[in-house]
């Protein structure tokens, strides 16, 4: 005889890094239905943004999320530049991309590390985090910060780099790259990792299109979606890189998209270091008018979208943003259909969920 019952998971749970509450309808060990309750850390940040001026909002938006912090201040600055009609200097375009790609490498490594942690592969978890630590050191040396880089400002960037720092960056990348290659091989061949990830948490291509998912979740389901390619911004039109797409539609496909992407990021940073032009790093502010504009960028988790409406004062009339996790949450309903209760945490991690930026 079988019977279904409801099983609560969260909001605070060992395997979930952030507070979200799942109501799972289970039938024995099998999940039949997923219901999600969020709102545990809603901060009302969009309302706060209309009470601060344009410059202060750079700092505010950088605190929306920690792993994609740089993408938020980056996209917000682009939105303001679009609304005011500012063109940023060439050197700033390159420096913005360097900061963004350094963050992407760290972010992807963090997500893969957590996957090993949930699987229970402790030594792999520690190994990946150790490699990531080198990227964190790099951030601290260049920016003075490990998470909120404070690299962007309206009209350009706040930091500049000299030849010595560029050398340091290059050396660090040379050290990290072979180690990430080793990590990639483990995730692609280790039988324990494969048993828990391959063919699990399926998101078919049609569902990925229907739900409008973005980032590695979309690319792991065979969708060619990458803002850096689709509508190039900053220095992305000037550098060569590939959009990584996998067809597996499973947890493993999403993991491999992230790991392959790290190598594209290495390529982008190296090209930026070589091609970095001299000159100013900021453009002057312009008169604020009544207008509206949007901007988007490819954060580690996918597309970040900003909309701004100004009213002639230095405070925005409306600032709205949408983060990649926003649509990816709903895809969990598809991924968890008929999965095992023990795989719920792993599937959740595979979308690289972010509660703080979804709820803002």
């Amino acid at each position, binding site marked *: 005889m079988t019977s279904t019952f409801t099983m609560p998971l969260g909001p605070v749970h060992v395997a979930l890094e952030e507070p979200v509450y799942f109501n799972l309808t289970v039938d024995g060990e099998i999940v039949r239905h997923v219901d999600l309750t969020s709102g545990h850390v809603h901060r009302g940040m969009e309302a706060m943004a209309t009470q601060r001026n344009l410059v202060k909002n750079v700092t505010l938006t950088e605190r929306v999320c920690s792993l994609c912090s740089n993408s938020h201040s980056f996209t917000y600055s682009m939105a303001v530049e679009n609304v005011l009609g500012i063109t940023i200097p060439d050197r700033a375009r390159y420096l913005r991309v360097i900061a963004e790609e350094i963050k992407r490498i760290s972010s992807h490594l963090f997500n893969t590390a957590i996957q090993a942690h949930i699987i229970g592969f402790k030594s792999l978890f520690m190994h990946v985090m150790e490699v990531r630590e080198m990227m964190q050191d790099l951030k601290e040396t260049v920016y003075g910060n490990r998470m909120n880089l404070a690299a962007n400002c309206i009209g350009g960037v706040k930091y500049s780099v000299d030849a010595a720092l560029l050398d340091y960056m290059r050396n660090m990348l040379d050290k990290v790259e072979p180690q990430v290659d080793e990590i990639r091989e483990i995730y692609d061949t280790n039988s324990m990792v494969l048993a828990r990830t391959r063919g699990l948490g399926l998101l078919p291509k049609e569902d990925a299109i229907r739900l409008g998912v973005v980032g590695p979740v979309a690319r792991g389901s065979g969708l060619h979606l990458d803002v850096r390619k689709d*509508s190039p911004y900053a220095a992305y039109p000037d550098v060569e890189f590939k959009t990584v797409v996998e067809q597996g539609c499973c947890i493993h496909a999403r993991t491999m998209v992230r790991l392959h992407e790290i190598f594209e990021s290495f390529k982008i940073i190296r090209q930026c270091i070589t091609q970095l032009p001299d000159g100013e790093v900021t453009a002057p502010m312009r008169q604020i008018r009544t207008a509206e504009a949007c901007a988007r960028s490819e954060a580690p988790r996918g597309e970040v*979208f900003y909309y701004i409406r100004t009213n002639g004062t230095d405070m925005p009339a409306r600032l709205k943003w949408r983060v990649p996790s926003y649509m990816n949450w709903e895809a969990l309903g598809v991924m968890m259909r008929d999965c095992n209760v023990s795989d719920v945490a792993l599937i959740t991690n595979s979308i690289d969920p972010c509660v703080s930026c979804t*709820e803002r």
Partner: protein
Amino acid sequence: MQEVINGNAKVIEGLTALCSTEDDAIHHSTDSFGNAYHWFRLGTPRMLTQGAQILRDADARLAMVTAYNRRQLSEPMQEICYHFEIQGFIYNMTVTLNGEWPTVPSITPLFANADWHEREMIELYGIQVMGHPNPRRLFLDEELDAGILNEAVPLSIMMNGACTTDLWERILQDKEKQS
């Protein structure tokens, strides 16, 4: 120099036909990297379904929905801007709501990911969405009034009276009710 408008001609024509006759109802812009943005202001909220259908037929992806008050622009009405993406180009469709009866038709049947966006604007801006398949609260507690972002709420009330006499008064009220 003639400005070239990049984008899907069929979508631009279709949405143009739905726009109001005001001068600024349609405009096209590009950012400093040459990416195109198209802006359309629809005649009435009822036309939203037709507009969404045109975009659906063109395989557009709904990127975001923004609801806002124009109060800060010294006008009383609310507006909703729907942002879509087709092959790297952004199509923005704006509808202006009647202040007395702020209602729009749901586009969730056409774009599955409109679900959360619509629920969010119901709870934060008090906008009514007709025909939404799942009109539950998304982030905020059921006890808070709908349209909470339309008014200024003291932080102490928002946080359930954590730091003022408000909490104490509430406890006393609850106690009276129980006894």
